[in-house]
């Protein structure tokens, strides 16, 4: 019998880590402020009390050292979870991530296994400015050798975390601060949902149809899924049926789910909080563009993302450059009026 309760995403992540630590003594976690504080964003809340400081380890502010140590410990058969507090901090330790964690398996011809989960906080919307508000998962998805997980709600967050810990490859797990359900930051309530008490996995590379619709496909992930669902509810009142595809993972990417939905609706909007240029939105658009022999579009593809500017501090500036419910709904309305050129 399953016993589901409503959890926040932070609670769901912490529960997942705790259950895997109980199941497998090789799992341990380390990072800045993850022990006594429980993680700045609550992802390891309550775990120190249960597992002690040998397995829930506060580290010095030395990201290269402890992320590199995670790689080294994983190569020996341990299953470390390392928290990089903000993804924006990757600059001080990128070498250990992209040159070592991501590549050692490949360069060893598959002999070296690195079951590391590197989890990190992403996203803006609370005026933390350019060095604490980025998403950047597109950057890590660009580098071969890292699985990229970006949950949008507590149910997925738990199942994807358990899957990540059990994976024998490096997994980067990105949680958006604005859906963690923190008591000190506004969040989208749709992200807190029913979560079974028991351990379960959500497989990688399987997108979720968060809402079905016939007219427009919105491809999104993380907090943007919650915004897209709110936009879809508004559009429904106007008779526009919106299908929301939650990618859940970027690597591996569920190409088929995207293609299937766009075949059905004939309209694609990619809504993203990462930078617009050279990233996720372009990648998804290209997948469809490459299949125009199979897909008939009724309107040109639209992309929403952070235009090529750093995240500004001031509230009106920040809210302007991050796609919002209204801009998503407006883009869909525009697509309903859109046309594609016919061959001459």
């Amino acid at each position: 019998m399953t016993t589901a309760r409503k959890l926040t995403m932070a609670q769901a992540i912490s529960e997942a880590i705790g259950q895997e630590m109980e199941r497998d003594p090789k799992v341990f976690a380390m990072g800045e402020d993850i022990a006594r504080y429980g993680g700045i964003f609550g992802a390891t809340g309550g775990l120190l009390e249960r597992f002690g400081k040998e397995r829930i380890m506060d580290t010095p502010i030395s990201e290269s050292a402890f992320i590199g140590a995670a790689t080294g410990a994983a190569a020996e058969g341990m299953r470390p979870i390392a928290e990089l507090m903000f993804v924006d901090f990757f600059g001080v330790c990128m070498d250990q991530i992209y040159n070592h964690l991501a590549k050692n398996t490949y360069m060893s011809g598959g002999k070296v296994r690195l079951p590391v989960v590197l989890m990190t906080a992403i996203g803006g919307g609370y005026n933390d400015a350019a060095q604490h508000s980025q998403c950047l998962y597109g950057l890590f998805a660009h580098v071969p050798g890292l699985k990229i997980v970006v949950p949008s709600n507590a149910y997925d967050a738990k199942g994807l975390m358990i899957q990540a810990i059990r994976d024998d490859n490096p997994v980067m797990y990105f949680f958006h601060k604005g859906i963690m359900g923190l008591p000190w930051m506004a969040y989208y309530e749709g992200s807190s949902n029913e979560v079974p008490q028991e351990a379960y996995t959500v497989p990688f590379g399987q997108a979720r149809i968060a809402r079905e619709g016939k007219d427009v496909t919105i491809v999104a992930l993380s907090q943007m899924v919650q915004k897209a669902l709110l936009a879809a509810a508004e559009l429904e009142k106007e008779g526009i049926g919106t299908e929301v595809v939650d990618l859940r993972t970027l690597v591996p990417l569920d190409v088929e789910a995207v293609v299937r939905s766009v075949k059905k609706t004939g309209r694609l909007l990619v809504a993203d909080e990462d930078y617009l240029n050279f990233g996720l939105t372009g990648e998804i658009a290209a997948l469809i563009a490459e299949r125009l022999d199979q897909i008939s579009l009724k309107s040109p593809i639209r992309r929403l993302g952070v235009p090529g500017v750093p995240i500004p501090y001031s509230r009106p500036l920040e809210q302007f450059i991050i796609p919002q419910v209204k801009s998503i709904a407006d883009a869909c309305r525009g697509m309903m009026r859109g046309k594609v050129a016919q061959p001459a």
Partner: protein
Amino acid sequence: MEPSAEKLMWMYETMLLIREYEETMANVYLEGKLPPNIQKGLAFDIGSGPVPGEMHLAAGQEPVAVGVCAHLRKEDTVVGTHRPHHFAIAKGVPVDAMTAEMFGKATGLGHGKGGHMHLFDPEHKFSCSGIVGASLPPACGAALAAKKMGKDWVAVAFFGEGAANQGTFHEALNLAALWSLPAIFVCEDNKYAISVEKSESTAIHSDADRAAAYGIPGVAVAKNDALEVYEAAGEAVARARKGGGPTLIEVKTDRYMGHFQGDAEVYRPKGEVGELRKNDPIPSLGKHLRARGILDDGKDAAIREKVHGLVQKSYEFARQSAYPEPREALQHVFV
């Protein structure tokens, strides 16, 4: 602490093996890279020949590898540098598969995906990295794993004196000291960070002094001598195995070849290498063995023949091995 006769013989033989391996590679590396077999106008083509790419050889630095690895077991971890052959050989990595890797062959350690700066042999617990200063954090991780698993295994990170100016050096030393990890950090001071002399890059003479900043023992080995390295490493490894935490060792060593093969070495005085070679650590160890009565002309000749045979066989194995299928490039991103 005088090594046993068996250890001494292992050290001598392994140093000879490393030296012959590197000298052979210096010649093989040049195959196909010189006129007239390359693009007109070039004096050298790095991407040609059976062993393409960069090549960093460690002739002269053998005492560091053997003096440390003489104390290690198969379960102990070694993380090396972009100049990794001496460490790999001393840690027991099979020389044939290592050579095949440098030839880019399917029989190589990494099926030809890594090359000479990226040798991975989990069975012998050896890895290395082409990034300066990158060896220290993963060695901390291996040491942490040993501690968590309740084993008395140790982890060694080798790095150059240039790497001691990287942030990773300081982060890793602090972490290892803080957590009392069974790690040994061994700095090979060969005086040059590529072309820049240590006096031009580093505010202090001996990197061993930096150990004081982290409250751990720092040992300076002033001579490029296998026995002196052996002694320093012996104490460090024993301390680490007993739970006494990490040690930093600096060895003043000598690089006989360029930073990479093809390096014009404009930065060092003419004749410097000739002077360094007068203190070649291999004959000096040989002399010690003879004084101990465990080496004579006959044994010496036999060892050299054995080493020569192994090197020849390894290069032959690499040459004879097949290349991977091009499509294999798409494999092994994930396991």
